[in-house]
């Protein structure tokens, strides 16, 4: 780099004023952008993980038999029975999906991380079949562990008989995600078999290895069955579509923020050219070509932009990785909208998305600054004598 360009860029950066303000503003824009990306990506990932581990698996095969599961893509399969029922307490009613699961279902390590369960003291166990309901449902029905509830099974065959059964609440769980907690209750697999007799109630949940989770459609197509094959995205289409729309909206908003920030940088570049017009004219007087003047201005503005982005990135990561305590605190204030979010989730940094946003910002800023710096051409040494 030309020694004069280096020296002048350094002087400009070290001079307090507009460039410092520019750096602070870019950092302040970048930090929430990064935090929002961490929050949205982590939240979506954690919600999907809850759905997959607790509710549906990645792929559901509803039917008595199936073939051609591509083992190399599969983490594990799990049998379950699924149907719908109305649950009554003495005062309230809840419409629930009843899922029959085998012993040890909740002990699987990845699943155990997604759910917390309080089980009944065996001394309080009655002869009734047990049901594990969520803390949300328990609150809604006004019941506690050990209490009795009535279950009215919605028949899944034309010959089914509508009749109530009495169950004891033997466990209360919480996944931390309202959409699951509101709708799901667990019973023993063998008992569920008696309640739901149709073949389509027999579900094989397929959990796909993490590296193949973007190939669900392809994996699904290879499976042959006498029943129906669906994936979690189809089964929870409204939730999945909400995820997609939310992510697209977030990305769009972020891009708009980035573009606005880039144009702010360009306007700072304009101001700097005006502020430094005497120095620019003087340097041209002593023989600096316009390209050299522009280069030094570009380097100083772009260095400050990158520094602002780096500070913003660090701040954003710091905020994004520590959002859980804030959400917990907010949830204690009973803010309604938080029902649809996970209060406790594993924050992960979506480096790809962050890199995309930062790269976009860098490129848009660079272009906007380069365009702004064309004004230096109009500054001639004569400005020193005429003022224009």
């Amino acid at each position: 780099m030309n020694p004069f360009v280096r020296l002048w860029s350094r002087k400009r950066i070290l001079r307090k004023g507009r460039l410092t303000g520019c750096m602070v503003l870019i950092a302040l824009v970048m930090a929430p952008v990064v935090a929002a990306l961490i929050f949205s990506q982590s939240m979506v990932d954690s919600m999907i993980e809850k759905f997959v581990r607790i509710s549906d698996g990645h792929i559901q095969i509803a039917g008595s038999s199936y073939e051609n599961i591509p083992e190399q893509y599969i983490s594990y399969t799990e049998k379950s029975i699924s149907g719908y029922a109305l649950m009554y307490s003495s005062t309230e009613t809840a419409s629930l999906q009843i899922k029959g699961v085998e012993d040890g279902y909740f002990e699987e390590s990845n699943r155990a991380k997604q759910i917390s369960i309080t089980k009944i003291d065996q001394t309080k166990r009655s002869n009734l079949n047990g049901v594990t309901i969520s803390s949300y449902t328990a609150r809604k029905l006004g019941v506690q562990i050990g209490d009795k509830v009535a279950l009215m099974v919605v028949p899944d065959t034309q010959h089914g008989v509508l009749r109530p059964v009495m169950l004891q609440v033997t466990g209360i769980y919480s996944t931390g995600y309202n959409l699951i907690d509101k709708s799901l209750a667990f019973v023993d697999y063998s008992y569920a078999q008696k309640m739901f007799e149709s073949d389509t109630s027999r579900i094989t949940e397929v959990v796909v290895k993490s590296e193949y989770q973007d190939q669900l459609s392809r994996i699904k197509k290879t499976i042959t069955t006498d029943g129906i094959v669906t994936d979690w995205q189809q089964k929870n289409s409204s939730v999945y579509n909400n995820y997609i729309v939310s992510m697209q909206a977030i990305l769009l908003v972020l891009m708009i923020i980035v573009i606005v920030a880039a144009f702010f940088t360009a306007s700072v570049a304009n101001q700097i050219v005006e502020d430094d017009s005497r120095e620019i004219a003087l340097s041209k007087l002593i023989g600096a070509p316009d390209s050299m003047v522009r280069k030094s201005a570009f380097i100083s503005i772009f260095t400050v932009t990158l520094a602002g982005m780096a500070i913003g990135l660090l701040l954003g990561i710091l905020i994004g990785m520590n959002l859980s305590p804030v959400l917990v605190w907010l949830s204690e204030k009973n803010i309604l909208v938080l029902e649809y979010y996970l209060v406790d989730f594993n924050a992960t940094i979506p480096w790809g998305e962050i890199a995309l946003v930062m790269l976009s910002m860098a490129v848009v800023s660079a272009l906007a600054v380069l365009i702004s710096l064309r004004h230096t051409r109009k500054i001639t040494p004569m400005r020193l004598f005429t003022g224009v």
Partner: protein
Amino acid sequence: MTYPIELVNICKSFPSADGNTPLQILNNINFCLKSNESTAIIGKSGTGKSTLLQICGGLDKPTEGSVLFNGTDISKLSDAKMSELRNRKIGFIFQANMLMEDFTALENVMIPAQIQGRRESECKPIAQDLLKQLGLEDRMNHYPAQLSGGEKQRVAIARALINDPDVILADEPTGSLDEENAKEVEDRLLEIVKSGNRTLLLVTHNMDFARRCDRILVLKNHTLTEEKASK
């Protein structure tokens, strides 16, 4: 024969305030500057002396005529070539201090050399030497705001000399200085011309300074006449 600077039929006019008749400043100016010669241009205020100097340095363009620098018509040079010419061949000194406020005296002097791409390690000793010659050895790391008018002017002289130019163009270099400082700057400038095979074109109101130059040109009624010819 080529001259460091040769002006051929130079005319300069500015648009008048009413937009009708242009305001004529210079009319058919012809002169040439020889190497190792100092020339002073004198004349009343507003006669166009500074404009003429700016045209000589390629800072302003004449309405008509051409400026030849070592035989090359500078109006035909690209902006980049013109910058290079100003940087390598011409040293400018002005009445108002024209130093970069964020740069120290030493850095200000080094700038023209650094524009050429010369490293600090290469041009710093030259700049230090020039500042020492001009009596500023203890002011090298001071910023312009910390220097007196005379000191700033000597820094400007050092800056004009760092690239060893063929021509020095000076516009009222002692105009803002007291008598003692003015005399010192005059001595330095004339000594530099004599010792370095350079050409000095000076615009001044100071007749004593003008008389010490080899030639005196008077700008009057838009034209230039020679009052004192070179021996």
